């Protein structure tokens, strides 16, 4: 039992440490960009608080110093009151100006900080290795941008100034109280401590339920997604009622945790406010006692002033306690934001560059600025010079072992040799490791053992950006970007002229359907090109690769969603595209692989057969069986 309690308080402690460290880091991040702005904000808050305090003190003295003398005076002279009121008005005006200034500056600070955070997050994300996206749900990554950054807005623009303001008010009020009367200050402080304690207790409780609410929300979210994805099945099996019942159970769990979380948060305010009232009563009574017993020269005016201060002291505590939830949520959000920021970017130790080249009369190569159609690897030498190797696109795998996890190898001892301009095809069942091989060529993943060379250069010596520029990729799942059709084709090479893009579209046989679109090449695609059919999207992806004009092509099931008739059209374009380029093709359609220079039959991460179509048929091995369909079930 005690062990449990200490454990609980331990987690509570680490949690509050985590909260404060996340908030500190967020503060540091903000100060990095807005040191000057923020100090101005703090200054203005101080100014505003001073003005408010001045006003308070004035009101306390209004009765004693101005009104009482006036009452006693035979001929009341209101001019001293008028002049003091003008002075107070001036101070108030300054306070108002300060308040506007800090509110306005804070807008820039909080929105600016969020902008910097978003941009930093985004560029960080762009630098992350593919592994990160394979191991993190896309929804989770998105939620960092939306939910988590959003929670920071309230914190930065409201909670933070509020807390600073309250802290200033608290400190100033405390000092004034100490000047006025120490015993009464003690009473006030004790009551304030009670408020802080209840706040801590209640916000702790509500935090527990808030995180439970988040979990329950996640469960509901997951359930809806799964069920909606399978909605057709739900329908054809008339399972609607059952699904509703299952949903109801999860839903009421969520209601319960939301109810409790909000209940504790909601009763915090009345409790604090009324402890404040109690504190007021205690001070008034104790003050009256002191004043009447005549000890320590306490006057009635002092007591009246003090009870006013007492009210001022309770208010900021209530205000801070109201911000508690926002603060805790912001800390959690900041924690997730910084967790993404702290991810390690894709490592790149490669030094070899890829440059435009031209051939000199003596057969050697030289770097040029302009596009010549001839490419070269620029290899740094020990003597700080460079040597140039013609980029031809020869790829060699030598004894490559690879696993997505260190201890689970999925590719075993892969060796292959692709001469420049050759077409290499991979066939095999799903999960045999075909796509994995292509992921290694462009170094989305690094191999555990063996070497991969491109034109004789070990690819881990080549800069990743240079390596990838030489590889054109058409993937099975086509992704398009918001923008015009032309923009999407030009994605392959930003400096391509419109004519180049159109020529590429013609090559891929995409020109026809593009021209039939309402705005032709200027048609704006949105939502991942949702208005196009899967086949049309793939044609665009092929055009995109064509305009990039890469020496090496990787086609991963590039024609899988194109129907047989269109495929004949695309095939012509593909053949034109593949001409003179080293091509790696993954396909399950016969027509695509038949004319390959070498076909690799893969199974369970190994190449089990290799050769040309005719050679493999002659071998009467697995390829033959796949091809002829005489494929008997061997083991059951």
């Amino acid at each position: 039992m005690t062990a449990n309690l200490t454990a609980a308080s331990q987690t509570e402690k680490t949690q509050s440490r985590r909260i404060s460290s996340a908030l500190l880091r967020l503060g540091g991040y903000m100060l990095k960009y807005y040191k000057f702005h923020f100090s101005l904000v703090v200054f203005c808050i101080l100014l505003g608080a001073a003005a408010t305090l001045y006003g308070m003190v004035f009101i306390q003295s209004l009765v004693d110093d101005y009104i009482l003398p006036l009452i006693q005076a035979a001929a009341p002279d209101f001019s001293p009151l008028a002049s003091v009121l003008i002075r107070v008005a001036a101070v108030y005006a300054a306070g108002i100006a300060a308040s506007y200034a800090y509110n306005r500056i804070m807008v820039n600070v909080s929105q600016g900080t969020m902008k910097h955070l978003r941009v930093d997050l985004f560029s960080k994300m762009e630098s992350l290795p593919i592994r990160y996206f394979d191991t993190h749900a896309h929804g989770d990554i998105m939620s960092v941008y939306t939910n988590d950054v959003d929670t920071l807005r309230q914190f930065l623009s409201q909670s933070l100034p509020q807390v600073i303001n309250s802290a200033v008010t608290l400190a100033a009020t405390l000092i004034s109280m100490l000047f006025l009367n120490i015993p009464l200050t003690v009473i006030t402080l004790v009551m304030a401590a009670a408020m802080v304690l209840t706040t801590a207790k209640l916000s702790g409780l509500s935090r527990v339920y808030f995180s439970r609410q988040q979990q329950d929300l996640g469960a509901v979210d997951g359930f809806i997604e799964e069920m909606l994805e399978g909605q057709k099945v739900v329908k054809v099996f008339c399972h609607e009622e059952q699904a509703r019942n299952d949903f109801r159970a999860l839903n009421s769990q969520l209601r319960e945790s939301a109810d409790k979380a909000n209940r504790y948060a909601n009763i915090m305010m009345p409790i604090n406010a009324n402890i404040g009232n109690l504190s007021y009563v205690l001070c008034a009574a104790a003050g009256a006692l002191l004043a009447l017993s005549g000890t320590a020269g306490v006057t009635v005016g002092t007591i009246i002033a003090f009870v006013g201060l007492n009210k001022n002291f309770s208010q900021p505590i209530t205000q801070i306690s109201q911000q508690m939830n926002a603060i805790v949520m912001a800390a959690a959000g900041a924690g997730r934001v910084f967790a993404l920021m702290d991810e390690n970017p894709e490592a790149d130790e490669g030094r070899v560059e890829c440059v435009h080249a031209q051939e000199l009369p003596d057969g050697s190569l030289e770097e040029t600025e302009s596009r010549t159609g001839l490419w070269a690897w620029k290899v740094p030498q020990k003597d700080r010079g460079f040597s140039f190797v013609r980029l031809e696109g020869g790829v060699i795998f030598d004894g490559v072992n690879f696993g997505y996890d260190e201890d689970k190898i999925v590719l075993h001892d892969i060796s292959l040799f692709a001469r420049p301009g050759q077409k290499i095809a991979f066939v095999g069942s799903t999960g045999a490791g075909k796509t994995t091989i292509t992921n290694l060529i462009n170094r989305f993943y690094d191999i555990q053992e063996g070497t991969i060379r491109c034109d004789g250069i070990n690819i881990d010596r080549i800069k990743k950006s240079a390596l990838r520029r030489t590889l054109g990729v058409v993937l099975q799942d086509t992704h398009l970007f918001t923008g015009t059709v032309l923009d999407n084709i030009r994605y392959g090479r930003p400096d391509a002229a419109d004519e180049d893009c159109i020529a590429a579209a013609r090559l891929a046989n995409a020109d026809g359907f593009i021209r039939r679109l309402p705005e032709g090449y200027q048609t704006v695609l949105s939502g991942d090109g949702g208005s196009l059919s899967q086949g049309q999207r793939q044609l665009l992806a092929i055009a995109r690769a064509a305009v990039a004009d890469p020496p090496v092509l990787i086609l991963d099931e590039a024609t899988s969603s194109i129907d047989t008739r269109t495929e004949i059209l695309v095939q012509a374009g593909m053949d034109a595209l593949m001409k003179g380029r080293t091509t790696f093709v993954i396909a399950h359609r016969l027509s695509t692989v038949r004319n390959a220079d070498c076909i690799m039959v893969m199974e369970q991460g190994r190449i089990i057969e290799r050769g040309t179509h005719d050679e493999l048929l002659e071998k009467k091995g697995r390829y033959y069986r796949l091809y002829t369909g005489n494929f008997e079930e061997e083991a059951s």
Partner: protein
Amino acid sequence: MKMILGSLRQYKKDSLLAPAFTALEVIMEVLLPFITAAIIDEGLGKGDLQKVCLYGVLMTAMAALSLLFGSLAGKYAASASSGLACNLREDIYGNIQTFSFSNIDKFSTAGLVTRMTTDVTNVQNAFQMVLRIAVRSPLMLVCSMAMCFLISPGLSAVFAVAILFLACVLALIIRMTLKVFDQAFRKYDDLNAEVQENVAAMRVVKSFVREDLENSKFSKSADGLYRLFVKAEGLLAFNSPSMMLVVYSCMIAIAWLGARSIVSGSMTTGELTSLFSYVLSVMMSLMMLSMVFVMITMSAASIRRIREVLAETPDLCSPVNAIHEVADGRIDFNHVTFCYRHGSGRETLSDVDLHIRSGETIGVIGGTGSGKSSLASLVSRLYDVDSGSVCVGGQDVRRYDTDALRSQVAVVLQKNTLFSGTILENLRWGSEQATEEECRQACQAACADEFIQCFPQKYSTRIERGGSNISGGQKQRLCIARALLKQPKILILDDSTSAVDTATDAKIRRSLSEHTTRTTKIIIAQRISSVQGADRILVLDDGRVNGFDTHENLLRTNAVYREIYESQKKGTGDFNRPSPSMKEGA
């Protein structure tokens, strides 16, 4: 709004109690400054300790009551708002269940999920805010004003002017801000879409080395968003200074006028102090009210999005005098024309006229996009035809109770889904009361029993979400077994053995024809070998019937069929199949 509040149901009581208790709390709070004034005037001012104690006790009692009311109000507000959210989610989900696919396509799965989570949470928070503050602020305002008038009607005129001024300023600010906020939130959606696009297309971005391009594009959008938000919130920054302006002006005015009143004897000092605190609470409540207003308007978008789903009427529904019995497995397509987007002119099926006898086995073959799956969807009335009619058992499918129809038409879909749960649980989707033995028999018929027996936990093996822990072929066989358990009059297999190797495919077909002799079977497939044993084969081409005859006749008469046959004669043309050693793994 009305529609949303209609979902309150059992929480109506709580939604009324919350403001009621808030009202009581407000009354206590409004009375408190009165007591404070009394403590100062009659107690401290006159040096009367007894009075101080008396009023102190009174104040403590009132504080206790205020605490009680406040806590109850908080409790009921929490319960009412979380209850509303719960009911809303349930109503939305319930409505989605009645949706046809045309309805669902309209919103997209992601759109529906956001509506049920983020949007509902927004409404929940706004509703709680309304319950607690929308009652509190006006009440506070009215009570405080009333107290002010009680104390000094003359001075209260100052308030009236001040409040009018403040209300105008706040209204102006809100009006201007909302317009900008509206723009900003739309821009925000675009920004998120950009992120989403990048997360999904990361391989493309990296393959083409376009990280810098994407970064600069994003920076530009983020900057645009920043400008809009600064504009909107810059306007909001006027809120608190203008309130301070009004409060301070009132204070100075009251100090001046109040001093005169006190001197002339028409007011006490204590009353002046309480006047000050009433001014503050009047202004505070106005401020709160403006905040609530902004909150509500900001959640208006969420309300609108939820209402859209709730107001959506399913475009397929069972007729009033629905037929509950399907006579037999006869299927008739009478000159059916169908498109997914009504009126778009892009016909998925054109003038399809087919008549299938009960118990017949029909093969359907055709290229991608030729309308095979659409044809299957029409039989179980997942969609409605545009013209013509589809009849099952001699009756138009639109005259059936949809549940009755679907329980007799089993479709094994092309894109099939298993759900997280055990194998047995998944199978019982077909028939809730099926015994384990019945499930086993169905699995044997679908050639699924053999691999299930290899799992250590057999039929209690857990299937992960989407069936991710078993192979494609295993999934397909389980889906067939699940459909068989329905013991349907019509069984439609939509390319449902594509991941199964040829031999098993043949075995399944054999066993199906033995187990379901009286069932009408429609087998949609890519491979000729899967359909050539059927009684008749339908050749679909671009949404039209190209041929409908036996294998032999089609080979003689149908060019398209012959073409497909020729291309597949040498082999299946498809390598993408599980290898035997893979199949029983995992």
